[in-house]
């Protein structure tokens, strides 16, 4: 992994500044307010599983320098609790809930097999190397994975779920300069290096063009 620093190309942009403008409609305000104000309690995972999940989330989407990191694990927990699925269960994989439990246990087993402690207790670099190995399908504790294909679980379930929670958060929208909510307003300027006044201002590189 690269060093743990992140520079947004749009440091002064915040999609939430448009909250009271026609870029937001009521239903969007309500959905986002709920996401930001009501972080769901843990109901599905065990405390141990949840600790592992939180540690994994912190490496998949590291958020150093953010006073209040975007919560991810609680939303995965609440999805699984509610039985909210993706619509796809790969035949080679157990159902979502079983896969997640098994996966958390297996990640912990990997940590123990390699370093003798739980995943959450490891240093960042150790955690990263374990996740990288799983991503390559290289397992040290193959017994713990049982019938769960490690790489598929990692990419198609774990990573996918984590980023789909992170990149719907206003903080994530802002850091990449995405326009964010846009109804009823929409956009007028569609060409290259063009921005409406209610978008992220063109980044330095763009402005120089």
């Amino acid at each position, binding site marked *: 992994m*690269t060093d*743990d*620093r*992140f520079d*947004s*190309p749009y440091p002064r942009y915040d999609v939430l500044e448009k909250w009271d403008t026609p870029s937001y*409609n*009521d*239903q*969007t*305000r*309500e*959905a*986002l307010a709920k*996401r930001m104000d009501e972080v769901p309690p843990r109901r599905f995972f065990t405390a141990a599983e949840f600790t592992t999940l939180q540690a994994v989330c912190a490496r*998949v*989407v*590291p958020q150093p320098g953010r006073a209040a990191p975007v919560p991810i694990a609680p939303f995965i927990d609440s999805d699984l609790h509610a039985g909210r*699925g*993706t*619509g*796809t*269960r*790969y*035949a*080679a994989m157990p159902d*979502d809930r079983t896969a997640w439990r098994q996966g958390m246990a297996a990640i912990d087993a990997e940590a123990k097999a390699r370093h003798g402690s739980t995943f959450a207790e490891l240093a960042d670099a150790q955690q990263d190397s374990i*996740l990288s190995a799983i991503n390559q399908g290289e397992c040290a504790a193959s017994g713990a994975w049982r019938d769960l294909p490690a*790489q598929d679980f*990692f*990419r198609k379930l774990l*990573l996918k779920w984590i*980023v*789909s929670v*992170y*990149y*719907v958060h206003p903080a*994530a929208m802002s*850091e*990449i*300069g*995405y*326009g964010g*909510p*846009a*109804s*009823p*307003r*929409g*956009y007028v*300027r*569609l*060409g*290259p*290096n063009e*921005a409406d006044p209610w978008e992220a201002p063109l*980044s330095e*590189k*763009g402005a120089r*063009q």
Partner: protein
Amino acid sequence: MSGRVSVLDDAAELRPRAVSGRAPDVFSREDCVPMAQFRDEEEVDFAIVGTGCGGGVLAAKLAEAGGSVVAFDAGPFFRPLADFASDEREQEKLYWLEERISDGENPIELGSNNSGRCVGGSTVHFQMVALRFRPEWFQARTKLGYGADWPVDWREMWRYYEEVEKACSISGPIRYPWGPKRGRYPYRAHEVNAAGLVLARGAEALGIDWAPTPLCTLSAPHGKSPPCVYRGMCKIGCSTNAKQSVLVTYIPRALAAGAEIRDLATVGRIETDRWGRATGVAYFREGRWRFQKARHVIVAGYSIETPRLLLNSHSARHPDGLANSSGLVGRHLMVHSNHAVWAEFDEEIRWYKGPPSMACCEHWNYADDDPTKDFDGGYAFMSQGPLPSDFATSIVTNSGEFGMDLRARMAKYNRMAGLKMVGETMPQADNRVTLSEGKDDLGLPRPRVTFGYCDNDKRLYAHALDFMGRMIEAAEGKNRFETEGTAHLMGGCRMGEDPKTSVVNADGRSWDVPNLWVCDGSLMPTGGGVNPSMTILANAARIADRMIAAGRRGEV
């Protein structure tokens, strides 16, 4: 947020809205329009399962011809203006997210990737690319030597393309570079956004044609719909009502003509009598199973749910499922290979503005004589504009990238552009839908979808990746990378001329059960190299006219 009535509390997902003789007015935030209502015991002319491209068109046209129609949809009845948020997660409510098993050599992603679940079907969240089949594809076997022939003449289909393009006010270019001359699109093409101009630049650098994509969203007002505001969230539902989905076109027509729509009503079985004729449908609504009597049953649940329902409606007379004497129900399922190339650009593209695919290229659908073409079938490709979560998930599932690398890549979001293919796959009998052992919450067997690419499919997408890669490079894209995937579903109940090699005839009428019909994407014998919905709509409009004509002859 206190003090204000929550907009999301009155969720369409929780309680049916089309009840008590009223259905939601999709052009309002909370109003209703009057709706006919039929009793379960009343034998209606047509019970239609599904209200997407196939079911929506039939409901409108059959009701307008005077038939009594009840159309069922498992999903909710939305009012886009009030129900659709600018939020990818919230809008997952549009998709079919019930567990389905994906199996085979190349298991496909289901859910948001290809299945809608609401009144209006998948068109509520489709990306509005509105292309026509190439004429020769309707005789792929005879003329091009692969796949199967359609039991339909291309000229007839082209007339129906015109009909449905008018009904959906397609905004398209004045001159379309490929295929036989077509009439003018009802609305003018939209302004091509920066992402589309990348495709254009690449095409011009390589010396091939490109076009502003014909799109199913308005470039000028129509009826109660305002024109597109280029908010770019078409895939998660258009809260502008500019998108001319079935929900805002055919469904209001159906209601006005006296059809009844039943939302949150899942059909679990088609019942048959001693003689093997369909008598109606068993459906689950408001917490209980009910039975609607009908003279004709039309299945329009799309390529997975249609075979699933037919297979599950087995009886003593139809032990292998309804309409399945050929053994072909569920077989010849097709997808489009949906691989893509992505690159970074010096300029800010900001592909989130405008419909996702504003420029397209059909060159390889028409380039039979090109010596580098080493595959049967064809492919089109389009410019792209995925929303953040959508883009991030496609990166991680393809490459496994995570950590700061991922965040850094996502930070280039505004400088990315991509080209994504819609590649034809061959109809293969073993790519299919079957019933699994597992049951869903209603006790219905879950479907199992088995899919694998054949060699021709692989040559086709390899060719496309190579070509799109050259093109994006010619457009000055840097740090290129590729993703793979599939889109769309086609086939599963193919129509044909012969009861032994098809499930239904050219009218969509099943060979085995004379009052059972199929009308949706599952009819398609081949998939073509273009997005399917215009073809499904046109075919449905044609089938509706055939049914009406048969009715006049006393055969219905």
